């Protein structure tokens, strides 16, 4: 199924890898390099799911999720958080900010696709 995904990460490598994994799975991928840029790209876009990093310049992942959830259109858009830490408190923080789920970096492309399908169909 063709999902449209917005991926926000400040690392070009990570963006490339996400894009590669998802394009191979037939997804449409939009990328942004930080929270602010992510909100700009989100404008006029109706992604089936959003992936975001936490540590980013200008606006971090928590701020980005907050801002996305504040938009009526995206109250229920699934948001997956990319995190290197598997520490429970970070997951909780992400969830409190409104994240749907999380993906622990380094991610396996197949699992990333699967996780997206899990939350976004």
């Amino acid at each position, binding site marked *: 199924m063709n999902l449209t995904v917005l991926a926000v990460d400040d690392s070009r490598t990570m963006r490339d890898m996400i*894009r590669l994994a998802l394009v191979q799975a*037939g997804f449409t991928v939009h990328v942004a*390099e930080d929270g602010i840029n992510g909100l700009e790209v989100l404008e006029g876009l109706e992604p089936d799911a959003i992936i975001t990093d936490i*540590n980013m310049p200008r606006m971090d992942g928590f701020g980005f999720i907050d801002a996305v959830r504040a938009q009526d259109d995206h109250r229920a858009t699934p948001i997956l958080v990319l995190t*290197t830490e598997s520490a429970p408190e970070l997951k909780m923080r992400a969830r409190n900010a409104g994240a749907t789920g999380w993906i622990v970096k380094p991610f*396996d492309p197949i699992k990333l696709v*699967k996780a997206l399908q899990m*939350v976004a169909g």
Partner: protein
Amino acid sequence: MSDPMDPMAEIRASFFIECEELLEALQDGLNQLEDGGEDTETINVVFRAVHSIKGGAGAFGLEALVRFAHRYETVLDEVRSNRLVPDHEALKLFFQAADHLSDLVRACRDDQPLPEETSAALLDELDKLLGDQTEEEVQPQDFTPLGVSLDLPGLSDLDDAADGSDPIPCWTIHFKPAFELYETGNEPQMLLRNLCALGEAEVSCDIGELPGLLDLKPETPHLAWTIRLTADVDEAEIRAVFEFVEGLCRLDITRDADPAAAPEAAAPAPMPDAAAEPGDPRPATPSPAPEAAPKAGSAGNSSKSVVRVDLERIERLVNLVGELVINQAMLSQSLESAGLSPHSDAMNGLEEFQRLTRDIQDSVMMIRAQPVKSLFQRMSRIVREASAAVGKEVRLITDGENTEVDKTVIERLADPLTHMIRNAVDHGLETAEARKASGKTEEGHVRLTAAHRSGRVVIEVADDGGGIDRQKVLETAVRKGLVPSDAVLSDTEIDNLLFLPGFSTAGKVSNLSGRGVGMDVVKTAIQQLGGRISIASERHRGTTFTISLPLTLAVLDGMVVDVAGETLVLPLNVVVETLSLSSEDVQMLRPGANVVRVRGGFVPIYDLGAMLGYRPVRTDFTGCIVLLISLDDGHRAALVIDGIQDQRQVVIKGLDDSFYRAPGIAAATILGDGQIALILDPADIIAGNGPIRVPDRSLKEKRADHG
């Protein structure tokens, strides 16, 4: 891995490029921290740089890199959250860790053996900063959201059931979402569908709590589900489906004791009931869709999008553009000789062509240009290492990091510059005690600057040390037989002795700069780049080495002149003006040494024809044309020529490969008519032929150096 078609190899390569950028940001950030930058964003940038390197390294399984970056990151996180205030020593360690991180990155990139010992030592140091906190090792954790086996569940399950050997477990799952489940964008429908994908499922919706329409609050969850799942999975796999909603729902999972229930449920699957509305169960693994999605256009937002190009291709382009310039020159020459009117279409078109050629040339040169920043950062590392080796506190101050220079020049500057920086730290700066005694700060300063100046790049290495001990230099030179013992040398000439092969001032050879490489090697390296190096030194104040380089190694704006029937090219940027001499302009100081009066000042005259050996020395300069040139060091000179042909761009063709380095000759070029002309290096000519200076033996020594 080297397969160019492999997209992962591409990304891996771009990861290492990104690493270089991150390492640069890391260096910058640390420098700012060192300068007492209170900005919280600075430590964030530093942290993120290490964090991103770790993230990427994890993706490529570079475990040593991940391990080191993780520990480094942990310490930085302490700083970030104000639990640790880095002192001078800690910052020094951060710099070392950054250096080591870049070593690791490069070792990983080039598949070189990793410097494990340094890693271990630095990790220990970092741990000390953390104090007693014990840090768990990071395990590259796998994310296991779904325990889906790749077999089609239905088929294999049925087979198993038929065998009857191992009855498929049957689970009953009660699932009641809480408000927060919806708030975080989770969707029961998805969860149920994922659950159905595990095996045969029967889903029923419990609408018992659903109030009447009047009392219904649309955002309050009322529904609950009961799922009877027959699947060869364990409880953990079922829980994994609910991983994201753990704590956001009530979830009871029980295994049915009665295996008899299995066949019932395993009967040709009644699709889960409408309340869950799962649609058609999709295959558990995504089928790679051939209709690849269009790439996002938003990538264009990135201000620094980069294309990697093989350097060879650029070289080819540069050469082709060089040919284009020559071709264009030939064309304009033949059109001119065809006697076309300057207002004809052909001539107008040619003018446009000329402009385009120049634009193309500039653009191509820009591709090769890089800021010297990366080079400077390498030097700051050299300073750190060198100062640690000789036990001096040294601070490197850099300026003009964004000055752009041809990539080849940058690469070939690294070695000579390294040597000069080491020299500055080792020999240039005094010991802390000596500095204190002479009223200086204990911390020595080395200043590294780059700037564009009159079409060239000028790089300076300056220290605030003791300056050159000229007495000692002269003694050494005499002892080594480089100059006669009765030589009388000016300060500049003594300073220049440092560049003689076989000269080394260090009374004792330290393990740092005394490696048998002298300043003569530095000078040769600079000259091979078409550059010059000079020294200015003041006792007790310090020494400054100035390197002046051409912006590019490929083209030159030149003035084409005639000398004794030969066509020569001079770099246009040194030419200040042209004069026609009359007899009263010229004053003879003594035979062979003349000066010309220019605007109230006197400028020495150099007879190019004689200096290059084309003809005997002139005695009468009346009616001659001279080019007044001004050099980087502020010296002015008047070069006598016979005539000026043109100003034009010429393509530089190196001679060093085929010939020896001729004094005064920088390179050659091919002119529009196919004729070959030599490109002169005026500063070199004048340095080698000083009619004004005292012609003693030391001068011959210097000339030998150029030869």
